[in-house]
């Protein structure tokens, strides 16, 4: 219907209403509603890809015409353009089937954030001062090129370093090709949301260094060790969709869900049974369950790679009788007996591990123990169990496993010879323990280039900022590693034109490579990223996908239209290639930094529902979203059990000092019943010094006081291994959404 016709109709109905209204004057006012306010706009929906966490959900962007102030050819002006108005899930995307989490939806605010870097910037004051001046793209790219050519002419190509959050798909491929053609070491990954310990365990147990996926929709029993799989962990939207089915999707068959953790997470809040063992003993508890199942022959004994990694498995785990496990974990022997019986009686059952249990010094043991339990339950590669997302057939789909870990490079002192550092989407200055001295190390690097859209703590040290487009303004390409049983390549054209004088990082890198010439230019022949993507998608046309059109051009438009390529539904059994390295692990108690006598509490930072590791703290929608459990808005808090608070004579809204051997922080106290007596918990994400107006100078950052403890075998940060003390230093005030929605009386008194 044309708008004009609609107006006619509404005028007519309006007239009728008025006429009938004349008969009953009292109703006239009540019935008349300004219909013209209710004419909805006609939107275009464009597919896109969410880049905010490793899940890689598919998006649909609602685009409407509007007037925007933009920079074109270096000049500011107002133009009419398509503007992204809302983000929803792509209904056909095999990861998220039209659904989207709170964070993904708030991603819209990145594009329109008032503190985005709007043009290339050059440092104009001392390093870290935050003073920059705008420069042109030509100038800044020339500067980078001359620095890099200088390295080449001095045979110092290996002193170029690239640090990035987990990269996937063709962005990954581009960076890999660039670095290897230039002669630089592979990119370093810095991503606090990555689970290197679990991926290592999966490599050892199942021959695949990837995150697992879970068939929760068809399972009969779920036990999760610390994984916040409905909130922030792995592929939360895919897992939440399946969770709904597991609860109410099968009439008469509602699976049981048990959560094991010391501080009740949003996921744990939904459990049928919640168990808090001693910190770091989750693996021992998993083996206690396995012991009962083996001893009482509830399941046939499994003998394969996953179980042969565990010391004593073939002897029936003699050291993990319920009584011995009770002594290690504090979980009563009878409860372990009961859980094991329940599990075996409600197959298919699946065990999940993620988050804090992997962040103890014995994290790898905990993960291997849970993998072995899954094997015993017969859930690996089976319906209702654990599986790995199949990968697309094209060989260049890319993964991050070849990269080195930023922390291990840093801690080995190998960052010191770096002459030029390229920084993409990573903020290691913010999200690392202060004792690692990342800021000081980066300070010694002569030339730092950031592709950041915001001047965060790490970009603040840059000599040059070459701002990337926002994701909605970019060509996007991603290959999800978990959350679906279909091979997926997500692809999207820009949903809108750029607002500012920014450039897509891949295009900037291509331009730099072309100007350097030589090997780098040869390895990256594409004019722009779009060309590279089109070339990379071409082989998928003949692969077993959804209705592949016969001609390449049509295929290219079709994948853009639907937001990518995905295979027909295939469930792939877990690969069982035997890795070279054999290690047999036995329970090692977790090590902690700090004596129990002076530092009585385990300090457990956790991934924030709103901000993840802190990368989303700049979004006002996330700041004002009440945290599900604490209902806090705009702040950080320190969580403690009411009985512990009573003992320490502290109460809610006291300002407390949390002190470890390596630092201290101040934050308001939140008394919460869902936390063990000897644990102090705190969400990550706040405490930014520099991250736009909504996040800067707000709250405290728990990462700063962590001890430099490492997970055995993998070397990654054991961020649950710090002990702390807590004391009251004053009063504070949390903004809570709970406790009544009326204006606070104190406010009325102030008037």
């Amino acid at each position, binding site marked *: *219907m044309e708008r004009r016709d609609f107006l006619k109709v509404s005028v007519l109905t309006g007239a009728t209403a008025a006429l009938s209204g004349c008969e009953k004057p009292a109703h006239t*006012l*009540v019935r008349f*509603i*300004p219909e013209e*306010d209710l004419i*909805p*706009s006609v939107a275009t929906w464009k597919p896109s890809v969410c880049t905010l966490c490793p899940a890689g959900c598919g998006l649909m962007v609602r685009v*409407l015409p*509007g007037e925007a102030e933009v920079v074109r050819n270096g000049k500011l002006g107002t133009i009419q353009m398509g*503007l992204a*108005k*809302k983000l*929803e*899930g792509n209904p056909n995307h095999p990861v998220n089937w*039209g*659904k*989207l*989490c*709170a*964070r993904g*939806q*708030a991603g819209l*605010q990145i594009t329109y*954030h*008032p503190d985005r870097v709007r043009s290339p910037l050059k440092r104009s004051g001392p390093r870290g001062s935050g003073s920059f001046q705008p420069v042109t793209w030509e100038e800044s790219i020339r500067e980078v090129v001359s620095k890099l050519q200088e390295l080449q002419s001095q045979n110092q190509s290996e002193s170029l370093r690239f640090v990035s959050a987990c990269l996937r798909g063709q962005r990954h491929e581009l960076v890999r090709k660039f670095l290897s053609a230039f002669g630089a070491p592979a990119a370093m990954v810095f991503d606090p949301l990555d689970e290197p310990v679990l991926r290592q365990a999966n490599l050892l147990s199942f021959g695949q260094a990837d995150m697992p996926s879970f068939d929760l929709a068809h399972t*009969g029993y779920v036990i999760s060790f610390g994984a916040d799989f*409905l*909130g922030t962990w792995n592929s*939360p939207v895919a897992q*939440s*969709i399946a*969770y709904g089915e597991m*609860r*109410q999707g099968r009439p008469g*068959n509602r699976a049981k869900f048990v959560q094991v953790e010391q501080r*009740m997470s*949003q996921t744990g*809040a*939904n459990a049928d*049974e919640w168990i*808090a063992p001693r910190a770091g003993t989750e693996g021992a508890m998993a083996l206690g369950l396995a012991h009962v199942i083996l001893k009482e022959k509830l399941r046939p004994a499994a003998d394969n790679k996953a179980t042969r990694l565990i010391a004593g498995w073939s002897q029936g785990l003699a050291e993990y009788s319920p009584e011995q496990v009770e002594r290690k974990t504090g979980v009563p022997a009878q409860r372990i007996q009961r859980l094991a019986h329940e599990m075996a009686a409600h197959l298919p059952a699946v065990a999940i591990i993620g988050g804090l249990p992997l962040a103890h010094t014995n994290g790898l043991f905990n993960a291997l123990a849970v993998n072995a339990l899954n094997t015993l339950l017969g859930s690996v590669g089976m319906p209702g169990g654990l599986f790995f997302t199949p990968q697309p057939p094209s060989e260049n789909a890319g993964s991050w496993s070849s990269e080195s870990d930023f922390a291990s490079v840093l801690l080995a002192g190998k960052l010191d010879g770096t002459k030029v550092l390229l920084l993409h989407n990573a903020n290691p200055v913010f999200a690392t323990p202060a004792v690692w001295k990342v800021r000081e190390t980066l300070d010694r690097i002569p030339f730092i280039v950031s592709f950041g859209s915001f001047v965060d703590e790490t970009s603040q040290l840059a000599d040059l900022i070459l701002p990337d487009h926002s994701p909605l303004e970019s060509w996007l390409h991603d290959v999800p590693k978990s959350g679906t049983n279909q091979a997926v390549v997500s692809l999207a054209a820009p949903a809108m034109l750029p*607002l500012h004088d920014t450039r897509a990082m891949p295009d900037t890198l291509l331009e730099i490579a072309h100007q350097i010439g030589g090997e780098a230019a040869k390895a990256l022949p594409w004019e722009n990223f779009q060309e590279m993507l089109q070339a990379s998608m071409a082989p998928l046309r003949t692969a077993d996908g959804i209705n592949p059109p016969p001609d390449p051009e049509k295929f290219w438009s079709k994948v853009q239209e639907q937001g990518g390529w995905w295979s027909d539904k295939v469930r792939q059994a877990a690969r069982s290639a035997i890795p070279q390295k054999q290690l047999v692990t036995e329970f090692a108690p977790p090590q902690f930094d700090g004596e129990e006598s002076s530092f009585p509490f385990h300090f457990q930072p956790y991934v924030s529902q709103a901000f993840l590791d802190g990368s989303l703290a700049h979004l006002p*929608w996330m700041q*004002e*979203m*009440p945290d*599900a*459990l604490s*209902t806090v*808005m705009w*702040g950080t808090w320190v969580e403690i059990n*009411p009985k512990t608070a009573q003992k320490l004579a502290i109460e809610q809204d006291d300002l407390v000092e949390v002190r470890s051997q390596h630092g201290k922080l101040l934050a308001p106290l939140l008394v919460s*019943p869902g936390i063990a007596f000897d644990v102090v918990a705190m969400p990550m994400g706040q405490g930014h010094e520099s991250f736009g107006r909504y996040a800067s100078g*707000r709250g405290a950052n728990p990462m700063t006081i962590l001890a430099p403890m490492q997970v055995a075998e993998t070397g990654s940060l054991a961020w649950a291994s710090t002990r702390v003390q807590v004391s009251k230093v004053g009063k504070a*005030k949390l*903004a809570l*959404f709970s406790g009544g*929605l009326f204006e*606070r009386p104190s406010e009325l008194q102030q008037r």
Partner: protein
Amino acid sequence: MAHRWGMAVDLDRCTGCEACVVACRAENNIPSVGEDQAQKGRAIHWIRVERYYEGEFPDVRVKFQPVLCQQCNNAPCEPVCPTYASYHTDEGLNGQVYNRCIGTRYCANACSYTVRFFNFFNPAWDKPLHLQLNPDVSLRQVGIMEKCTFCVQRIKSAEIRAKEEKRELRDGEPAPACVQSCPPRALVFGDLNDPESEVSRLARSRRGVKLLGELGTQPNVTYLQRNEWNDNNT
């Protein structure tokens, strides 16, 4: 037959993920008020996730409950409005005509569910955040009340599309932003006048209850109680 829009909230599916809260914010141009005003209880959330703790450590249980306007059939907010700003639509919604509202806040006092919010300020967005605003939803000025509309603009839009294509609305076709986003499908929306619609079937569930049903407000929102696990339910 006219539609009567209703919602079912399955508390056994709800995980407290807050996707609905942000979806509502994005769809309905809800302003952010900042920390100081939030502390004073002036934050606006047309839908919220309430959280209830039960028990003491280690036997702690939590219940999440999303609460939005219950779109009562017998709404306490409507008769108290001196300017007919709160009115009942033909399709069963508790409407709010912003340009009639004079901010007496009687409706907020009368409402049993605390889902009506007063605008203490004119809305403001730091530029260019204003470009995210949804043109289908009017901005509310200082001094007036606002509330959940069941995303009436999305209902209208679906109705117009169906009319254009000369067909009836499909069950589940109009979906408020919260329902559209909900990952575990805890929120279901539809026509209560259609006995075959999913929302009607859920509203008849044995687990179904009305929030503060004893008050006689006759809400169009039904809550489905969370199930307890027991060994026999396989």
